[in-house]
Each structure stands twice: as structure tokens, then as C-alpha cells.
């Protein structure tokens, strides 16, 4: 991305939401930092974000890209299956 034409840097910040901090925490633990069992690398996180394609930067926020990438990595690694995820998302969704 370095050197591509781009606009003014808007000095935006936001106070992170709890779910965003939890995504950060998930990554910290899954990459083996802070006593977590190392189940993935930051390289896989980055690779799977790159795989989302450039439009992801318009469609998704930073932690939305992260959670997608982490989840994708867990599926690729066989820690969870797609079916596990589908059933759990349906269950959580039903809880409302």
C-alpha cells in the first residue's frame, strides 16, 4: 500500500468497544503471548486479511477484518469447523 495515491489523513480515533478489545485479546492469546497456547501466527492473521481483498478496507472496520481473519485461520487450522461455527452463530443469534 505504500506510495499509492491517497487522501488527507483524518486524525480520527475512537474509544474501543469491548468486543474489539476481546478480538485483540483473542489474537494475543492465540498467538501464544501472555500464556496462551500458540495456535496461529501473526503472519496467518495478515495473510488472511490480505486475502479479503482491497474492498475489505471499505466494507469492514479494523477489528471486523481481524475477527474474520482469526476465525478463518481457526477453520484452516482445524481448531473449529465451518459447521461448528454455523451452529454456534445460529445458537447465539437465537439468544438475541
Amino acid at each position, binding site marked *: *500500500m*505504500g*506510495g*499509492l*495515491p*491517497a*487522501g*488527507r*489523513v*483524518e*486524525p*480520527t*480515533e*475512537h474509544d*474501543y468497544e*469491548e*468486543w474489539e*478489545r*476481546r*478480538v*485483540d*485479546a*483473542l489474537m*494475543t*492469546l*492465540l498467538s501464544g*503471548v*501472555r*500464556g*496462551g*497456547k500458540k*495456535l496461529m501466527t501473526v503472519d496467518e492473521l*495478515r495473510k488472511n*486479511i490480505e486475502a479479503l481483498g482491497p474492498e475489505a*478496507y471499505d466494507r*469492514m472496520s*479494523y*477489528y*471486523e477484518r481481524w*475477527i*474474520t481473519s*482469526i*476465525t478463518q485461520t*481457526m477453520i484452516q487450522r482445524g*481448531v*473449529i469447523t465451518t459447521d*461448528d*461455527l454455523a451452529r*454456534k*452463530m445460529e445458537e*447465539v*443469534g437465537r439468544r*438475541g
Partner: protein
Amino acid sequence: MSELGRYQPLGYFQLMEVSLRELLVEKGVLTEEAIAATVEDIRSRTPARGARVVARAWTDPAFLQRLLENGTRACEELGLDVPALRLVVVENTPAVHNVIVCTLCSCYPRMLLGIPPDWYKSRNYRSRTVREPRAVLAEFGLRLPDGVQVRVHDSTADMRYLVLPMRPAGTEGWSEQRLAAIVTRDCMIGVALPRAA
């Protein structure tokens, strides 16, 4: 569904976060306690930690040398817990101004400074800082004197960077604590300068 105060359904990605977390806990990969503790740990990591390092470097020339040789070890010397951090400290001088960017993603010394600001992760900052650093700095209100060389550091691999700004005039005799209070996050990224005022 639009009654005032009614619980809002989770968005897709938040649903994914809850689901992944619960699955990983069910499978014994993680515990809720570990996640909660890590969230608190992340919350505790603020730029004040980096500011302590800068203030010590300003007041202790031997520490400054050690900091420039091995940033991580010097942080640990101050009792700062920085797991997995490989820190390179780049020193501003009257002749050189440093600024940090990660063009490929958003690498940042999180274990020292906490989570980076949105703008640091933005497409615009990441694209333009390597190519037109002075224009980007000007947008932050930082205009450098003519003779100053700009060094941009692109954090592309395993090292993480901290800018050591110059100690401003008017701070003679200040305590480390008072000095640390004027060192902002933006000074340590390189888009601002500390002020004595």
C-alpha cells in the same frame, strides 16, 4: 424491533466474535478468565509507558545509550513488561526527524504503547507517509525547519519502533514524572513534538 431500550441484535462480526470465543472455550483452547485478564492487560497498556522510557532517556545519558542499543532490554530495565517486543528506538536530533509507519498493516509497539490510533491504521497514512512524509506531518501541524532530514521507518517485519523526541527547551530541572507528562503518543510515532508549555 424498534422500541426504545430494546436490546439490539448483534451485528454479523460481533456475532462471529461471541461465537468463536464460546467455541474456543468449549474446546478447552481458552478460558473466559484468560480472555478477561488479557483485555484488562491491553487496557493497562497506554502511551504513558513509552513516555516513562523517553523521560528516563532524557535524564540519564547512560540509559539513553542502552536504549539505542537494545530498546527491549532497556524497557525491561525500567520494570516494563513487554513480551515479544523487539524494540528499535530512533532518536530525533537537530538534524534528523523520525516518523514511523507500517505500510503493510498496522505494526506498532503495542506491548509498550497500547492499541494504535485509527489514523495510524488508515489507508491514507499508510500510503502517503513513506512517499510524502513532510506533507503528512504538515497535516498534523508539524512543520520541520529546512535543514532537518526526515527518516521514515516502515515497520515491515519483526522490529517495532519508538521515536525518541528531543527534549524541549524550558524543561531544565524537571522531574522525570513531569517530563513524561509532556511526551504524547503522537510524539513517539513522530507526528508531533513535545511542548514544555
